[in-house]
């Protein structure tokens, strides 16, 4: 769908390039507001709850911009008070473990920043539960950048319960195997290249990644119907993550309708990829506000959620033939660099050993060793070589 916007832009740029011009201009940054960003979801898990505070930063600057030195507390309107301590810059954890109880009274967030300004959330209440009944892995096709791709959809079926709205986060972990399994490696002795047996695992690693987008679903249309077969994660058949064994841990957070809409709008805004934004941009209202100045913008959301999690494992060969494995995610051409070049590369840890070269020059070159870029041999470029505790082979 996005291509329309882009086409339109092309048209427009033509007009501009024929008769007009595009030039940079300075926007008045002195008076631009800096706003507090509150990322707070407390759950029904009994644990040290976590709240993140940060601040907006200028366009083009590197983030994040944590907000330190704030006093953070959550009050239960029936009288409980939970203090939060800053443990890392901008990350505040509750001093004691606690969980939000279902259908108890409302919770409210209060933040006093280091400059003495007070912020609060609207009172929110947990009146839903969250349960993942099962997860399925099904073959499916889905559009990726407008092109239909074959692949696997990891779907969630929630239990029949009170919540109609969920947000999902996931953590995926997968086996990563280097393209070449070589028992020897380069070593440097007195500035001279030599080889030695490997002492560390470089072939089998585990890569873990967190979700980086807002994934939300609703069991719309009919009241109280469970969310069924919601694709939390779609993995194209060409995705190297599923080459061997793959695991996905899904967390399902219940949302209020208001929170759901908030995330939905945020999603839509960030989904606009075109240069000339076709969407009407604007400030997205959450449920947090400044107590002192109602006109001050505060970003983010304070959510009280029920949470459930579920983990699945699968192998590539459970669904496809081993000959169909995804391509290796790196261009691995074997070369024979001449010694000075090789020495430089080995010093910089850029290449790995395949084997000793035999004979004279060939299409790979004329150096003494056959080498490939390091990511083709050492899986630690991508992950860690320690098997996670939860891993089931």
């Amino acid at each position, binding site marked *: 769908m996005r*291509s*329309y916007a882009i*086409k*339109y832009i*092309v*048209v427009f740029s*033509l*007009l*501009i390039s*024929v*008769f*007009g011009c*595009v*030039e*940079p*201009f*300075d*926007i008045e940054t002195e008076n*631009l*507001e*800096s*706003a507090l*960003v509150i990322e707070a979801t407390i759950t029904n898990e009994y644990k040290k709850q976590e709240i993140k505070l*940060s601040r*907006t*930063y200028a*366009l083009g600057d590197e*983030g994040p911009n944590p907000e330190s030195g704030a006093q953070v507390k959550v009050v239960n309107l029936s009288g409980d008070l939970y203090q939060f301590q800053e443990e890392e810059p901008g990350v505040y954890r509750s001093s004691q473990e606690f969980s939000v109880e279902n259908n108890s009274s409302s919770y409210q967030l209060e933040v006093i920043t280091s400059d003495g300004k007070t912020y609060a959330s609207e009172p929110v209440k947990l009146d839903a539960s969250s349960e993942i009944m099962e997860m399925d892995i099904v073959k499916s096709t889905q559009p990726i950048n*407008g*092109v*239909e791709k074959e692949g696997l959809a990891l779907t969630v079926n929630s239990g029949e319960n009170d919540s*109609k*709205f969920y947000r999902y986060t996931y953590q995926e972990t997968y086996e990563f195997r280097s393209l070449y399994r070589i028992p020897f490696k380069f070593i440097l002795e007195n500035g001279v290249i030599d080889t030695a047996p490997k002492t560390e695992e470089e072939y089998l690693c585990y890569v873990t990644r967190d*979700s*980086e*987008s*807002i994934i939300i679903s*609703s069991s719309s*249309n009919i009241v109280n119907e469970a969310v069924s077969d919601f694709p939390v994660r779609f993995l194209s058949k060409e995705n190297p993550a599923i080459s061997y064994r793959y695991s996905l841990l899904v967390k399902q957070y219940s949302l209020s*309708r208001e929170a*759901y*809409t*908030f995330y*939905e*709008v945020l999603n*839509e*805004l*960030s989904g606009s990829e075109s*240069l*000339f*934004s*076709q969407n*009407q*941009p*604007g*400030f*997205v*209202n959450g*449920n947090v506000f400044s107590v002192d100045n109602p006109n001050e913008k505060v970003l*983010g959301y304070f959510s009280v959620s029920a949470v459930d999690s579920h983990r699945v494992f699968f192998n590539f060969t459970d669904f496809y033939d081993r000959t169909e494995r995804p391509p290796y995610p790196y261009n691995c051409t074997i070369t024979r660099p001449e010694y000075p070049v090789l020495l430089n590369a080995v010093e910089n840890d850029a290449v790995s050993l395949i084997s000793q070269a035999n004979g004279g020059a060939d299409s790979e070159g004329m150096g003494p060793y056959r080498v490939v870029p390091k990511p083709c041999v050492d899986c630690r470029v991508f992950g860690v070589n320690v098997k996670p505790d939860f891993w089931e082979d």
Partner: protein
Amino acid sequence: MKQQLLFLSFMIIPFVSFSQEETFSINAEGITLKEILLEIESQSNYTFFFVDSWLDADPISVNFQNKPLNTILTEVFKDTYLNYYVYKNQIILTPNNLVYDALPEGFFGSVNDTIGNSLTSGDKAGKRNMENISPIFYKGIQNRNLNKPIKTLSIGKETTAKSNKKYSLSGVVTDKVSGKPISNLAILVKSKNIGAITDSLGYYEIKLPQGANLLETQSLGSENLRTRVVMYNNGKLDISLNETYEELGEVFLETTNNNNVSDAIVGSETINVEQIKNIPLVLGERDILKVATTLPGITKAGEGAAGYNVRGGRADQNLILLDDAVLYNPSHFFGIFSAINPFTSGDVNIYKGSIPAKYGGRLSSVFDIHTKNANTQKFSGEAAIGPVTSNLSLEVPVVKNKSGLIIGGRATYSNWILKNLDEESLNNSEASFYDIIGKYHHSFYDKNKIQATGYFSKDKFSLTSDSLFSYQNRLMSINYEHKFTEAHKANIIFSNSDYKFDISYENDIRDNFQSGYNINESELKMILDYELNENHNFIYGLSSKLYVVDPGEIKPIGGESEITKLKIPRERGLESSVFISDEFKISEKLLLNAGVRYSIYAALGERSQRIYETGLPKSTATVLDTLNYKNNEVIETYGGAEARLSARYFLKPNLSVKASYNNTYQYIHTLTNNTTISPTDIYKLSDLNIAPQKANQYSLGLYKNIDNNLYELSAEAYYKRSKDLLDFKTGAKLFLNENVETEALQGVGKSYGIEFLVKKTRGKLNGWLGYTYSRSLIKLDSEFNEQIVNAGRYFPSNFDKPHDVSLVANYKITKRFSFSANFAYQTGRPVTYPIGQYDFNGAEYVFYSDRNKYRIPDYYRLDLSFNIEGNHKIDKLAHSFWNISIYNVLGRNNPYSVFFVTKDGKVEALQSSIFSVPIPTITYNFKF
């Protein structure tokens, strides 16, 4: 009637005798009037006194058996301008005048019984009832300082029937040489502040008081005529004028003459295409709608924006009619050219304040554009050759004096230009447009007229080798006019309009698609115009319009494409109305135009509609049920009464105050979340979940003309409230969205402003200067956070430009050379800036300011043009006209939009402008 007629001031005949009951028998076919009179003379001892030329030579048939003289004479003179008077055995014929045999009441100051008795004691044939008779006396109007003697024409036959104080004079004004009707000619009686304008057929109708009136005509390009007309009754006067070029270079808008002071409508403008030819051009195109934007209250969001904003209204709130059919997209090339062919257009009436009751369906304004009628006398044409476009129109008489066809076409050769540009990336591009229009009109008899118009326009862009974008308008209308009587006529109009756009995308990758949108509407409308008497003029009628919308579809091209086919189901709606208005002259000073319109809209099946939980925002999350409606089943109806009231009060003869109140409904909405309108915007009909938009407007104006309308001054203030304006949530996606209501917000709008306009209508230097202060605000508030924009406060709309100054000036150097300038200044329009970014849930997001909190820099522009009229030899083949224009002489880089790109991880703010350098153009026009 060439020579000056016998000057009959008045006649006093002291006594009348007419006692005979003599009878005559005349039975003849093909006999002339004169022969009848001679026959009577031969049968009796009467003698007729007349001038031969007064009598028609056309043979008539009569059959009188033993009829008294006065019966016969009344009958035979019935269809002539002749009156007769019987004095003893002499019968005196008089053209026009009645011979009064009595003095009018009060002639000698007071009436006494003696005179009264003697006046009424006559024989019954000569007896006249003094009541309701007002004889016409006129003294010679002094024709000072005029070389030519003023002709005096007598109109109508004086009757003894109840006298109107005013008679209607109508006729057609034509060019003496070409025979073409002259439109927009002002016909005035200056001393009495009466005026009329000829329509596109050259037809005029003017109400003149009894007696002598010094009639003057004024127009550009035609000689000015002064004629004395003596009104005895309703009558006809056809005028033919010599074309002159004396008034060359005179600009514009002047034709409404005294109307700006005298009519009851607040906030209306008329632009005549003939009169805008000297205004500086962009890329060589004369543009009627661009001229409109130099008038107070009408703006564009920017160069390259396709729509017009009238008095703080959105671009979809304008009803743009081309010969009664709706023109959905009035622009070519992203608004740089208008889609209206300047050569075939006659004039455009713009109603931005009080909208007459016969129009409806849009909130802000009506642009009523008329195509001119073809010359029915001789073949003629006009052509223009410009740097980007060429234009040709032809006028073809079909039946002489009765019917003609006008056709016009325009095309661009921008494709050729693009191919030859140095910029390599554009060589494979394509950008073209064309439009064609044809109109046929036919007058059957005096009572029936028919005209039919067809129009088609197409724009096409292909700027990368794999994409093609096109949009097109197609419309037709048939207008049949029937006159029941002089005072009562009906127009039956059928029209059909169609607008669509298509996007296709083809490359080597497997995502080729074709996508499009289509709206079609058909309307049947009947308008009746009934002039009850000089104090009441009723316009009433009814209309019904069917909309059919295909809101969007996308389908794969070729077997390889992996795009999923999607078609949003068709929408249909029926909008109907009845209306009546009366222009009621309460007194000489107070004129009221009161109208009411009742409109009703029904959304029709076949369709399915979602039912949402009441009291909650509409979203996928709050859907309760989905209802399916059968074909033609009524889904929902909306409607209401719309008042259209306006009044004028003369404070002094050339100073008036006017006020109006209007309310309007709109059932069709543009879906756009672009900050400016674009050709990919789609129209959506009201349905179960989208309520119609409503507006109330109050206007007040003060108008003054100075020095015989040499200067026209006006100040108008307005205040407008709108309800259920359609806006969209932050981040909404609209095209190919089956449930657009989930993205929609309906808010309230408020706009107000004051508009000042000074026009100098004649002279070497003429033109106008306008200044407008206006605001256009909208409020999106709700009890739900996600529906609140800018904390629920009023904020400026996308086209809120408080200060607007326009100057159009024309200076006539000689008869052939003139110089024009056009200056515009506007406050920069509001935009939403990204003011930072932040991290949230593991991703980066942009932090935006409040909606429309900032403004782009102010807009100003000066254009100049120089016009050279060809020489004035009468016999030459074609009449030519050169225009040399420089658009944006100051080279001001007016930002059209601002946008933000991420470049190497940095966000950069850029502004784009359409014409950032002076654009010179030269255009050659010729007429044949």
